[in-house]
């Protein structure tokens, strides 16, 4: 099966003093696959995810490698074209839902804004799509939510809104950067549930970034372990948890209190 996203030798360095933030990272994403990117905070996971969307400040960092999305290398695209990719083909879900939306505009405003950026259509149509998306993540009274301001909704609801938004444009790839970190246990479960639903319903490939191994264990098909900007181990999820090869991986597992070999289906 041809990969939806193929990253080859992605390297990100600071221009000022050539400090490598991400070094030689390569991986692929297949349709409907969930790849987990795991590592401690600061190891370069977010940098990687932003690099995929070419959202890093190119005056400060230097980015090289190939980012193949279907037929196109994203590294060759103009900013204008890239904008269509962002949100339209690769969607992003942020870590802290409470600060993801602009506080002075309603949810509805921002949803419709996003939809109309990518698809021409009337406000009416966009609104309908937004409503539908909200219903998909089982948010009650979607009308009220559209009229609400971000500060009026809880973290869990906002996270679901983000998912809804991410999906309503039917992107090929969804990057979820620490989607559960800011939530309580109940909402964490909900988020993961909907992510899975998205994958199952639309075949979206998901790059799931987390430092929380239990989340990775539950969701991912493939796992990439990142340390200091490099991928130190890559494996099938079962293999990783049963037989972690790299000492760092073992260290991580131990830190989070997970016994190696304790993965049962």
């Amino acid at each position: 099966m041809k990969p939806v996203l193929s990253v080859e030798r992605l390297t990100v360095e600071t221009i000022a003093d050539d400090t490598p933030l991400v070094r030689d990272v390569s991986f692929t994403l297949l349709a409907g696959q969930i790849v987990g990117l795991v590592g401690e905070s600061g190891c370069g996971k977010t940098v990687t995810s932003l690099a995929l969307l070419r959202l890093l400040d190119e005056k400060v960092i230097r980015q090289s490698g190939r980012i193949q999305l279907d037929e196109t290398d994203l590294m060759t695209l103009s900013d204008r074209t890239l904008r269509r990719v962002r949100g339209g083909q690769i969607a992003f879900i942020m870590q802290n839902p409470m600060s993801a939306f602009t506080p002075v505009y309603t949810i509805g405003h921002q949803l419709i804004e996003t939809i109309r950026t990518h698809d021409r259509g009337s406000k009416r149509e966009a609104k309908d799509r937004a409503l539908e998306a909200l219903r998909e993540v089982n948010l009650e009274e979607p009308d009220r939510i559209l009229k609400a301001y971000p500060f009026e909704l809880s973290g869990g609801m906002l996270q679901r809104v983000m998912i809804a938004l991410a999906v309503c444009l039917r992107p090929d790839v969804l990057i979820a950067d620490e989607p559960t970190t800011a939530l309580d246990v109940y909402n964490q479960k909900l988020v993961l549930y909907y992510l899975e639903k998205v994958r199952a319903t639309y075949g979206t490939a998901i790059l799931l970034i987390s430092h929380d191994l239990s989340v990775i264990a539950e969701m991912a098909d493939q796992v990439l372990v990142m340390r200091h900007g490099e991928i130190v181990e890559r494996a099938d999820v079962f293999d990783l948890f049963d037989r972690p090869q790299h000492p760092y991986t073992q260290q991580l597992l131990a830190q989070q209190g997970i016994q190696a070999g304790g993965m049962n289906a």
Partner: protein
Amino acid sequence: MGVYILKRVGSVIPILLLAILLLTAMIHLSPVDPAEAYLAAAHIQPTEEVLTQKRAEFGLDQSFMTQYATTVVRLAQFDFGTSFVSGKPVLGEVLLRLPATLQLALSSLLLAVIVSIPLGFLAGIRKNGFFDQLSRVIAFIGASIPSFWLGYLLIFFFAVQLDLLPVGGIGSPSHVILPAITLALPLIALYTRLLRTSVIETIREPYVLFARTRGIRETVILGKHVLRVAIPPMITGLGMNLGKLLTGTIIVETVFSWPGFGRYFIEAIFDRDMPIIQGYVFLAALLFIGSSLLVDLLQLAIDPRIARKGGDRR
């Protein structure tokens, strides 16, 4: 809402009482009393007879507390007394000149806002870019150049040398231009930098990044999302600096022969015309409340979080 406004107005009453107390005290403590000042200005030798008569006229022959109490009672009935100098009711004198000052102040404010918003915004989105450097220069000039000097400079170049604008006075839109610029410059200096800082901070916020991940155009992100969030601190700054506008009009009105209340106030000070001075203080207090109220209402309109929550901004 009405209750809110009433509460705000009410809170200023103790301040007003204190201000009047201080003013009355100042007359009492001043080595020169208004009666003498009047006579000195009129080139009249202050004989005992004339002095006594004038003092009685001005109510200066009463004890300090009596004077204070009389003043407060008067003001509570919105009777602002009569000018020592012209003998006409203070309210009339004020209302005659107030429109001109308001016109000048509002024009300057408008100018300041119209210039500061784009300049501050452009300065903020591109740090150390051209507009940022420009805003820095303007801030420096606006903060250091005394307004009367700027006024003279502008008159000299535009009115005298180039003969494009009038030297002073009021009448046509062309009369407002130079005084408004002079009055607006320190404000522009301040607001531009305020907005710039606010913009720089706002751009760093997560929701700006998120908007980018959604593929929204950068101009829309900056113009809509960033600007909208960055403006309120500038508006707060606007409200807090309205005092600058008020005191600024005193100088600008004098230099540009603008027939407003600021200039009249200065004359009143030299003349020791106490009722006018008191009237000005009262008016200034009212303007302060009014403007800060207006600013708060504006904030309400722009930032919905205040309306619905009344709490944290970010």
